C-alpha cells in the first residue's frame, strides 16, 4: 500500500511520529550534538513556530540558541550568514514559502556565492527550512512551490523530504553539511505519521530513493507529491501496469544515477511536482534523462505540474494541484505513446 515502502526497518529506537514531530526531533538531536547549532526565525520561540516544528526548543536550549527574530526575512538569512562566518551552524525558519522572497538577495547573491568568491576559503553551513506547497486551503502566498529558483542557483543544495523518517534523517544531514541547504518541508504532510528510527544514520544528501520498483513506467516525485505518486502507482497496478516511484529527496544536485537506472529499466518516465511545469525541475529531469538515456526511452519524459499561473484561491486549488487523475492521464499518454495502447 501507499506509504509502506517508505517505512524504515523497525528497530528498538523506532517510534511512530508525524513528519512535523520528526523534524522537531531532528532539530533537537542536532542541537544536543553540537552546541554551535542555533535556530532563528519568526515566532520560533514560545510559539514553537506556526507549525510547531520548533516546539519546546527554546524552553530546552534557551533564548540564546533559539532566537525569535524581528519580522524580517532578509535579516534572518543575512544574520545567519554572519553567524556561520563566526563558526555557528544556523538553521533558519521561513514561516511560509511565499515569504522567502524578501531574503532572495541574501540567499542567491550572498549565501550561495560566498564560498566560491572566497576561493574555497569560507564555508557557510546554513540551513533554510521552508514549509512548501499547497493543499491546506490557505490564503495567498502560503502555498507556493519555489524550488526551481533555488535549484537554479549554483552554490545551494536543495532538499525536499516526503515522509517522517526522511525528514528526520535528511534534516540532520543538512545541518551537518558545510554547504548551504534549502530544506523543503511538505506542509500538507506535516501531520502524516510514519516510523522514525531515531538512531538511524543521517541520510545522504545526494541520493534519491526508489520507493517502488516498476517495469512499465517510473514516476519521479518529491515532497508533497510523493504520496500522490504512490496512489497513482497503486491505481495503475489495478489496471495491470507496473509503475515504479522515485522520491527525489535531493533536487539540487539531482541523483542522475538513480534516475538513469530507472529510465533504463522502464523506458518511460513521468515527473510530477506542484510547481509550474514551465521551467520547473521536471524540465531539467526530462532533458537530462533524454540526454543520458535517449536510446532506451520508449516515450518522451512527460511532466505533470501546476499551470503557468499564480497559485489560485483555496476553493479551486484542488483543480490546480496535480492529483491522481492528472497523473494517471499522463501515465496513460506515456504508456500509449506511438500506438502502444494501454488497453
Amino acid at each position: 500500500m501507499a506509504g509502506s515502502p517508505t517505512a524504515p526497518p523497525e528497530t528498538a529506537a523506532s517510534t511512530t511520529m508525524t513528519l512535523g514531530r520528526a523534524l522537531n526531533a531532528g532539530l533537537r538531536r542536532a542541537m544536543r550534538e553540537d552546541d554551535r547549532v542555533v535556530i532563528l526565525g519568526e515566532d520560533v520561540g514560545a510559539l514553537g513556530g506556526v507549525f510547531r516544528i520548533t516546539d519546546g526548543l527554546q524552553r530546552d536550549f534557551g533564548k540564546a540558541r533559539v532566537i525569535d527574530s524581528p519580522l524580517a526575512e532578509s535579516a534572518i538569512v543575512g544574520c545567519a550568514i554572519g553567524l556561520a562566518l563566526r563558526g555557528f551552524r544556523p538553521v533558519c525558519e521561513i514561516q511560509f514559502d511565499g515569504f522567502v522572497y524578501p531574503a532572495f538577495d541574501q540567499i542567491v547573491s550572498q549565501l550561495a556565492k560566498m564560498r566560491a568568491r572566497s576561493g574555497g576559503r569560507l564555508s557557510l553551513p546554513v540551513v533554510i527550512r521552508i514549509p512548501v506547497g499547497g493543499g491546506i486551503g490557505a490564503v495567498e502566498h502560503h502555498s507556493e512551490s519555489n524550488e526551481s529558483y533555488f535549484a537554479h542557483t549554483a552554490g545551494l543544495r536543495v532538499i525536499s523530504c516526503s515522509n517522517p523518517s526522511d525528514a528526520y534523517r535528511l534534516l540532520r544531514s543538512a545541518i551537518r553539511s558545510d554547504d548551504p541547504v534549502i530544506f523543503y518541508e511538505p506542509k500538507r504532510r506535516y501531520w502524516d505519521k510514519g516510523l522514525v528510527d531515531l538512531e538511524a544514520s543521517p541520510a545522504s544528501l545526494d541520493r534519491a530513493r526508489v520507493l517502488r520498483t516498476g517495469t512499465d513506467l517510473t514516476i519521479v516525485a518529491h515532497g508533497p507529491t510523493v504520496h500522490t505518486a504512490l496512489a497513482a502507482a497503486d491505481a495503475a497496478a489495478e489496471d495491470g501496469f507496473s509503475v515504479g516511484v522515485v522520491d527525489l529527496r535531493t533536487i539540487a544536485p539531482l541523483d542522475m544515477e538513480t534516475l538513469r537506472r530507472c529510465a533504463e529499466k522502464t523506458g518511460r518516465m513521468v515527473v510530477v511536482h506542484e510547481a509550474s511545469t514551465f521551467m520547473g525541475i521536471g524540465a531539467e529531469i526530462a532533458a537530462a534523462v533524454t540526454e543520458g538515456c535517449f536510446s532506451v526511452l520508449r516515450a518522451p519524459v512527460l511532466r505533470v505540474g501546476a499551470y503557468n499561473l499564480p497559485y489560485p484561491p483555496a476553493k479551486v486549488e484542488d483543480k490546480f494541484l496535480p492529483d491522481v487523475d492528472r497523473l494517471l492521464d499522463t501515465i496513460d499518454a506515456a504508456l500509449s505513446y506511438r500506438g502502444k495502447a494501454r488497453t
Partner: protein
Amino acid sequence: MTLVHDPPAFASPTDPPPPSLERIWTSKDSGPIQFVTPDGELTDLGAEYGVDRALAQTLYRDMARARRLDHEALALQRQGELGLWLQCWGQEAAQVGSVRALSPSDYVFPSYREHAAALVRGVTPGELLAQWRGVSHAGWDPGPYAFHLYSLVLGTQTLHATGYAMGSLLDGADDVVTVYFGDGAASQGDVNEAFNWSAAGNIPVLFICQNNQWAISTPTDVQFRAPVHQRAAGFGLRTFHVDGNDALATYAVTREAAAIVRRGEGPALVEAETFRMAGHSTSDDPSRYRTETDLATWQARDPLLRLETVLRSLDTRASYFSELEEELERLAVEVRRACRELPDPVLDQLFTHTYVDPHPLVDAERLAYRKFVELMSVED
C-alpha cells in the same frame, strides 16, 4: 464633561488655533496623545479640543459596525464558511479615527486587518470576506473605494504607497496617500526604505502604524528598541504618537498629520498604540505566549466603551443607540447572507486574468486544462 461643540469645533475660524499634536520624540516623551481616558473622561487636551457630537456619533457607529462584522466573520469561520479570519477587534478606533480624517478620495493602502477602515470606505461585507473564504485573492475593485487590495506580504504596501504618492506629486495633485502597517511589519526593509525615500524626496505619504503590541507571538520589544514614531522621526518624517483606542484623539492627530502632508511639507507618520484583542488569526493560539492579564488591561481600554461613555455623557438621544442596534442586526444578516452567496471561483478565469496581452503558453495550457476537464466529465 464641559466643552461640547455642537456643531463641529474644528472648522471654526474664530477659535484660537488648537495646540499642535505633533510629537517631537524625547526620552521624556509623556506618552501618546489622549483626549478621552479609558473611563470616558475628557483629558485636559481633549477638553481644549472639545467634542464634535456628530463626529463622535459617526466614529462610534463605524466602530460598532466593524466589531459586529468581526464577530459574525469569526462565527462564520468557526462554522467552516471561512477558511481563515483575522480579527480587528480592539483596533477599531485606530482604524476609523484615522480613515475618517482623510478626504474620501485620498487613496489608502491597507495591510490585511483593516476591516474597520474598509467598511468606512464602503467595501461591502461580501467583498471583504471573499479572500478569507478562499474564493478570491482580493474581493473588491480598489478604484471606486480609493482603498487598495489587502497586502499579505508584510510591509510591501508602504513602497507602493510611496510610489503612488510620487505619482501624485508628478500629477500636481494634493492628495494624501495613506498606508497602514503593523509593528511587526515595521521591521521589514521595505518599510524603512519607504520612510527614507518619502522623507528624502518630500513625497506626500501618510504612514499609519497600528502598534497592536504583537506580531503573532512576537512582542514589540523583540522587534525594536526605539518606538516606530521615534525611528520615523530619525528618517525625517513628521511624527505623531496617539492612543489608538481613543477614536477622537486618533481623528484629530491624523487630521493634523494629513494637513502637513497635503501642504507639501513632506511625509508624516502616526503611531497608534492599540492592542490585538484576539489571536493573530483563527489558526493562532495566543495562550502559548501571552497572559490573561494583558487582555484584561486592554479590555479596560476598549475603544467602543470609551466613546460610548462620552456619547452618553453628552446626553445622546436614546434613539441613536436603538437605531444603531437595529442597523447592526441588519448588518449581521447581510454578512452571513453575503458570505454564503459568494460564488466559487472558476479556474478557467485565471487563464484570462493573468496577462493583459495574448500569451501562447497560457492559451495552450488553457486548452489542455479544458480537454482534461472534458475527459474527466466523460469518465464520470
